[in-house]
């Protein structure tokens, strides 16, 4: 049972990466999850529109910090294993 702060950090980093790489035009729109679709603009309070806005917000806020954190973590893993 012990998972340490290091494991927590790597897990949340990977999870945030997985949210940030969902590009809206190239990927989400092809599967019907675009923000310009009528069912999203019609009811702005629905679960789908909320999920889309969360993804958009996370991309907007965390993209550059995540680039930095990923670089640092990769270097750390390279050097210290």
């Amino acid at each position: 049972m012990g998972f340490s702060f290091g494991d927590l950090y790597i897990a949340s980093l990977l999870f945030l990466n997985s949210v940030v790489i969902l590009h809206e035009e190239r990927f989400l729109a092809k599967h019907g999850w675009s923000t310009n679709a009528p069912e999203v603009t019609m009811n702005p309070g629905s679960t789908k529109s909320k999920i889309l806005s969360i993804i958009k917000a996370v991309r907007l806020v965390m993209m550059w910090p995540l680039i930095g954190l990923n670089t640092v973590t990769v270097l750390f893993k390279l050097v210290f294993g």
Partner: protein
Amino acid sequence: MNQAGMQGMHGGMQGGMQGGMQGGQQGFGQPQQGYAGQPGMGMQQGGVPPPIDINNPMFQMAASSGAQFFDSGHKMLQNNVEQYVSMSLLRYYFSVDTAYVLAKLRILLWPFMHKDWKRCKDEGSMVGYLAPRHDVNAPDLYIPVMAFVTYIVAFGLHQGWLNSFTPEVLGKTASSGIGIMVFEVLALKLGFYLLDGPPNRFVDFCCYCGYKYVGIVASTLCYIFIGMHWPVILFTGLAMAWFMFKTLATSLILRGGEQQMAGELSTPHYFVFAMAMLQLPVTWLMGI
């Protein structure tokens, strides 16, 4: 100026401590001798002359400057912490009394007979609900914090029983406990946001997730003293699942008033059920 003042207070405390040590077998009055004026009291019975003379002007000066610096340090702490954590909000969560704690522990370990889970509204208070000491359904932070610390200590005790205790065990247990709680609280917050729930505070979710430590402590102690903890884990896991289900359902599903108890299963129901059932494996995971 602060540096010199701190030195002075430190010197005063040192003198007080050393005087106290020389005094002999008195119990806990010692560290307070820098501030309070009671050093002479317990000592006369031992027949030892009081090491600190209250009437000494030096002692009085040290005492007053000590009190002054304690005050200013307290103010500084308050100003800095207030930006991040609202102290008056926390005060709401810690306003408990013995009757509340006993009733809440009974509900946590046997929630199946508790009938009314709604929190009572109170317009005057900061949170909008009655304080924990007046309302058994209100979340509080006292029980989770105490249970968490007891869990860490009990886990350390168990490791010591097995002769495999190292001081790192305490830190590891604390960080993994906090880690699991962070995930759970985030999942709860995300779920409530997506399902259009009423805006429960972040602290409320921490309270609800922290209540499971009561059951975990019970199962850990059973494991230490009886050696068999599967029944206790199962039972406390089920009790916590029922508790979470009822609490979250009251908050999420019944928000529109009583007419929504029509019984049709919808996404909020599934979410609450899933979060409640999650308590079981988490309880097992945190146990031994």
